[in-house]
């Protein structure tokens, strides 16, 4: 449809295929969620499926793969900052249990 427009013409078929693969990845995440495996392995696998999904959405739906490299790089800033925030706060939960939340 968009062939007369520009250099990067993503067709409707590409979007349909992307939609299909996103559903496959969602099903995969659901499968991981329902299997009874080690919590850490589960968390790792869920991080993998989630990253795969957001990369697909960003690259194709949000057209990020056709943008300049500097725009692509700044969109990774929140991810990097979130990892820093996470790795600075999370070790606090690993040591003593003095600040455990009580159940009423």
């Amino acid at each position: 449809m968009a062939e007369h427009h520009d250099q990067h013409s993503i067709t409707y078929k590409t979007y349909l295929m992307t939609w299909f693969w996103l559903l496959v990845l969602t099903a995969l995440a659901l499968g991981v969620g329902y299997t009874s495996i080690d919590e850490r392995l589960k968390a790792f696998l869920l991080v993998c499926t989630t990253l795969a999904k957001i990369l697909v959405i960003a690259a194709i739906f949000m057209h990020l793969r056709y943008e300049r490299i500097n725009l692509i790089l700044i969109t990774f800033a929140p991810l990097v900052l979130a990892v820093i925030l996470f790795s600075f706060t999370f070790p606090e939960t690993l040591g003593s249990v003095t600040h455990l939340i009580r159940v009423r």
Partner: protein
Amino acid sequence: MDSTIAEQQRILASDWGGGKSPFGTSWSKFMMWIFIISDALTFAAFLIAYGFMRRISPEWPKQTEVFNMVLITFMTFMLISSSAVMAMAVAAARASNPKLAVRFLVLTIVGGLIFLGCQAFEWTNLIEEGARLTHNPWGVPQFAAAFFVITGFHGFHVFSGVTILAIVALRAAMGKYSADGVENAGLYWHFVDVVWVFVFAFFYLL
């Protein structure tokens, strides 16, 4: 004097000289990206706080016993589908086909409204079962607090997205239509989908 003008022109022609966008986008699209980045940090803070609270809780309720997972999966399906349709609306707008773009936009809005309806249904059920911000029948108070704050904030984003898309669709139907406007609204809508991908994986599945 001539050399100064040449110098100015040389500066303007360079990437960061002020003569053109260093990011190769329109200003509105770049601003939308900046907004998305800051909003992503808000949600990152929410989800990290949730992970922290969950770690220091003695136990966390099993999601499958509290939530209707069929409904949640259906909501995920609706949001992903509406995101795909939104991408097609942008393609139609870029191909200068406003009629098709409006049709796709309306479908996107319907998907968003179904998602919001499901969420209202889910919230009503949980509130009737006794879930509040401060306490809930399943365990630590932080469980329901995290649930209401995270899904509430996301739901508010979906609501804003539906409103923005309705305005864009109306304008497109009236002929006041720009492909850039549709694309920026689309970027926001995809971002809402991205946030839900995180919420679905880490709040409902983990």
